[in-house]
């Protein structure tokens, strides 16, 4: 199948506790469809064959499933921990149902790591967990020979809060707010994907106006997220003026988010059955004014990111990811589109009203940091057009329908195009008002392997600009 359709990719692997068995569900996307391959292995001996030899993109997903659910992937054995703390006791898998986690006692252990590695010439440089270039705690051990990077070892999990487990003890209503707090940047995406998945199990039809309002919320989020990364990228390469410009112009978008949702960051707009707040008709001219203002500034921004000599020097031909590698590693979002892989969930599997709204799918073929930023720049324009269209064509009517508190037995998967790429939620219900399993696959987890590949052989000075072009979000990655 991998050969038949070159765009076939593994989105994630969900581990499930099915009582006596462990369920291992492979969520696979092709150019046209999305489906799940289900496997079950006995709990006493949960062994499976690894996929990394035929599809390297499975690496992180297998490790995560092994760490949290205890499945063993032969050929890709977990050494130590992947996402859990290093001092977490072996043999205790938090996502299994039969484990009493309140009994687990952890002893804080100091980290032992020296900057020198064994082989003479090479030196290990440790970036993180507290580092000026990283807003979030995460550790990357970069081995360099002279100035050339020879190896990058990531250690993720510093922001692992156990949200997937926590969701299994909260009601669907509470979970809408809980999953929103997976990430402080793309929070409407998380809330939306969760409610959309629950609506699939409930077979609810959401009113047309709510669907438009949801698209408006998601696109406003994309705008602020992209403006954020443009500024952040400037900061990472030491170009602070760019940071100040973009963040200055991000504030009007934050004001719009506040205007439409009532809060700058966590709008809590999404709810099962619709949306919680309507847009006031009097506010539409205000929103349009901000959109027009941003549109008039776009040529200037575009000039910065396409032609500005400093940025070109730091970004052009840095971190080149070839199309073949992008497909093999199953990268998503702007990173895939910058390498010539035309995947965009909004086009491939349209949700809400994206099939009614005209917009272009942005694809670049350069595959470098410069292309990744320019994909986002073009998406900024498309987002503004989508917002404009949605505000004009939004029908009148109710904004939500009443949804039952309990959800019948069933399971569903939803994927959306978050600012950083494809976001997946898998929800399994057991007939009560509390879900049995909520699986979250965030885009950054799928994109980090591409950085591990592209950083090799490049200068250590290019690591920040290469890395920030992934628009990494570790609170999403670790959950």
């Amino acid at each position, binding site marked *: 199948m991998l050969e038949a359709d070159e765009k076939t990719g593994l989105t994630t692997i969900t581990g499930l506790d099915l009582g006596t068995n462990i369920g291992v569900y492979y969520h696979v996307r092709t150019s046209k469809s999305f489906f799940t391959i289900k496997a079950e292995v006995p709990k006493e001996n949960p062994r499976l064959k690894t996929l990394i030899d035929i599809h390297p993109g499975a690496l992180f997903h297998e490790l995560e499933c092994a760490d949290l659910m205890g499945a063993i992937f032969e050929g890709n054995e977990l050494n130590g921990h992947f996402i859990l703390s290093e001092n977490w006791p072996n043999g205790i898998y938090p996502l299994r149902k039969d484990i009493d986690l309140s009994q*687990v006692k952890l002893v804080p252990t100091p980290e032992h790591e020296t900057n020198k590695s064994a082989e003479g010439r090479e030196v290990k440089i440790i970036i993180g967990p507290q580092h000026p270039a990283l*807003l979030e705690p995460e550790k990357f051990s970069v081995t360099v020979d002279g100035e050339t990077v020879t190896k990058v070892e990531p250690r993720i999990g510093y922001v692992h809060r156990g949200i997937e487990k926590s969701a299994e003890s909260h009601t669907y209503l509470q979970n809408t707010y809980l999953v929103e707090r997976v990430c402080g940047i793309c929070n409407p995406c998380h809330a939306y994907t969760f409610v959309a998945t629950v609506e699939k199990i409930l077979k609810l039809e959401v009113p047309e106006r709510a669907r438009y309002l949801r698209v408006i919320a998601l696109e406003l989020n994309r705008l602020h997220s992209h403006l954020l990364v443009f500024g952040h990228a400037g900061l990472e390469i030491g170009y602070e003026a760019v940071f100040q410009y973009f963040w200055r112009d991000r504030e009007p978008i934050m004001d719009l988010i506040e205007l439409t949702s009532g809060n700058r960051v*966590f709008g809590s707009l999404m709810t099962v059955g619709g949306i919680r707040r309507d847009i006031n008709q009097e506010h539409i001219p205000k929103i349009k004014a901000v959109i027009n203002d941003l549109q008039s500034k776009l040529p200037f921004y575009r000039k910065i990111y396409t032609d500005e000599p400093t940025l070109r020097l730091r970004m052009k031909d840095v971190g080149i990811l070839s199309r073949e590698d992008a497909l093999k590693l199953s990268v998503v979002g702007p990173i895939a589109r910058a390498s010539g892989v035309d995947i965009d969930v909004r086009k491939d599997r349209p949700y809400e009203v994206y099939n009614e709204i005209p917009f272009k799918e942005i694809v670049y073929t350069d595959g470098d940091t410069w292309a990744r930023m320019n994909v986002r720049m073009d998406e900024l324009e498309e987002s503004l057009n989508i917002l404009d269209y949605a505000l004009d064509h939004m029908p009148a009517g109710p904004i939500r329908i009443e949804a039952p508190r309990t959800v019948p037995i069933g399971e569903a998967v939803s994927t959306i195009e978050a600012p950083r790429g494809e976001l997946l939620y898998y929800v399994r219900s057991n007939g009560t008002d509390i879900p049995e399993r909520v699986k979250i696959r965030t885009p950054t987890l799928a994109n980090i392997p591409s950085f591990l590949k592209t950083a090799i052989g490049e200068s250590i000075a290019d690591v920040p600009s290469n890395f920030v072009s992934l628009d990494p979000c570790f609170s999403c990655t670790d959950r």
Partner: protein
Amino acid sequence: MVNTKTWARVKSPWVLHFNSGACNGCDIEILALLTPKYDVERFGIKLEPSPRHADVLLATGCVTHQCAERLKRVYDQMPQPKFVVAIGACACSGSVFEGNYNVVGGVDKIVPVAAYIPGCPPRPEAIIDGVIKLLSVISTPKKESPVQAHRAEPAIAEVKQNGKQ
């Protein structure tokens, strides 16, 4: 001399930001403070990357087990006198993540906290207000200012003891 030191500290506090398991919401708001709309540099506040140069630690997040040790280490590396500001509901109490298997709880379980700024996330104005309040406390000439009185033995010792049992 003491007065000069206090004067310098209050006029230009250098702050260090440490994320101990936050969702980015608070962290982005802290970064937004530096941008033209809020611009805290007008109060002399400077974001400083090294703990050894910092006066104030802006701690966010619900302290995960991986970060607990590091948070303590960052705090220990800061020179005296030092103040911790817990920003956001998570840093204040653990918020919605309280009781999760990988979460220790509020920042005050690991390091002594001088000021709490609640909110999910707090608005930039609220963060400015909190930091200014802290500065006014630092500048009070009293020997036993509320901030000093609040210093307690960090709770990480308890965590260690529990682990040994």
